[in-house]
């Protein structure tokens, strides 16, 4: 097995999560989780989990700008990483793209976009998934 195929099963399993923000909801206490959890930490054994698609709408909980990126992300620098608090409650970490850095503040409304996350070199897999951008005034998300 070449190094290029090492993470394939994991990448494949995470497609629903990365493409469509599939998380979990506890049917007993209705708490939502991301990524998927098998057990509700609040209800423990009484909990009953089902998969749920999260809306992709949320706001910036905290953020930082990366100037010295980890390997694989060198060309993206400088870029913005934020902890996003989704409307449904869960928090996740993602890149914030497609906006002026000065527009990103704590509490800024953001929405999910679909982007290339990483490439395994010139011959390997291209990994796609969610990033976020600030909600523009003309976005359909606002009109819903």
């Amino acid at each position, binding site marked *: 097995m070449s190094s290029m195929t090492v993470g394939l099963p994991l990448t494949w399993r995470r497609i629903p999560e990365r493409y469509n923000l599939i998380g979990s909801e506890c049917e007993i206490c209705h708490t939502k989780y991301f990524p998927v959890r098998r057990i509700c930490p609040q209800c423990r054994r009484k909990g009953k989990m089902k998969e749920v698609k999260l809306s992709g709408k949320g706001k910036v909980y905290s953020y930082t700008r990366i100037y010295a990126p980890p390997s694989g992300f060198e060309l993206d620098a400088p870029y913005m990483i934020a902890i996003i608090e989704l409307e449904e409650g869960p928090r996740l970490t993602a890149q914030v793209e497609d906006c002026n850095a000065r527009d990103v503040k704590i509490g800024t409304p953001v929405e999910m976009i*679909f982007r*290339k996350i990483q490439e395994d070199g010139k011959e390997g897999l*291209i990994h*796609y998934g969610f990033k976020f951008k600030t909600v523009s005034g003309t976005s*359909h998300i606002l009109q819903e």
Partner: protein
Amino acid sequence: MSCLIGLRNCDYMVGIVGYGVHIPRYRIKVEEIARIWGDDGGGIKDSLGIIEKSVPGMDEDAATFAVEASRNAVHYSGVEPKRINAIFVGSESHPYAVKPTATIVAEAIGATPHLTAVDMQFACKAGTTAIQCCMGMCSSEMIEYGLGIGTDISQGRPGDALEYSAGAGAAAFIIGRKNVIAEIEGTCSYTTDTPDFWRRPGMDFPSHGGRFTGEPAYFKHTVNASKELMEKLGLKPSDFDYAVFHQPNGKFPLQVAKILQIDVGKVKQGLMTPLIGNTYSAASLIGLASVLDVAKPGSRILLTSFGSGAGSDSFSIVVTDKILEKKGYNRTVIQFVGDKEYLDYGLYVKQKRKLKTL
């Protein structure tokens, strides 16, 4: 060679149920590119009819474009994604040589697994051919809804004339038999073997026949497909309220309109290349989306694509009352075009990874 799918005799209409576009937010001005090569920026701007072109973000490709445009189309249509039974993605810049873009789109919009999907390539016209395939499968009742996409992130060799025009964008159309916002009353194609533009496997940039690309390629195919469509449907140029043609630059579509004796004013709403460059497989489809953004019920639209190699697909599209219910559902093409950030040539080279070391 030609063919016509005449849908007039069906009990139902086949048409557009939803549409969506994606245009990246970065732009570079033609004058900024000219500055690097010592060209006359003003002169090039005038001769191409292009002011600036769209540039993808570093993390965007033809697949992410297709997904964004398709999600907008699904949102607009209100169609449950599992009822989309076919996805055809037209592009000349699919991110993989082998591994379908269509599978990525299908998964990302939630249409998997009960559907057929395939990638298509025909230079700048694969997107309209994708729509023809959806029409055929819908009218034969093989599928309930089909999704046809044109998406491209096109490359021009640095210093080549194409560098001034090669833009990036996508448009997605959901085709079906029910609740259509625009009926497709007929389509017709014109195809020959014409070596005006090509790219061999493994090459980063295309080669082209320079001036040879105009008369025997673009004009011949676009004009013949459009004429034949009008003839077979019994329509006159004056029957159309809008005309959208493939737009490799800002000038060709206006010249085609003149040849076809269509009022040049009818081309303006669908002519986006002056502001976003040539978006290849998406070019005529983004133009169509721009027309649908403003068209009123009863408006008739002529759409004719062109793909090098070469061929054209022509369509006559009539807007229905249903379009009124959908106003404001999506960002309009004009809103996408207006949301922009300019790059200088240095950032543009980094973003497009034009240097081999990048």
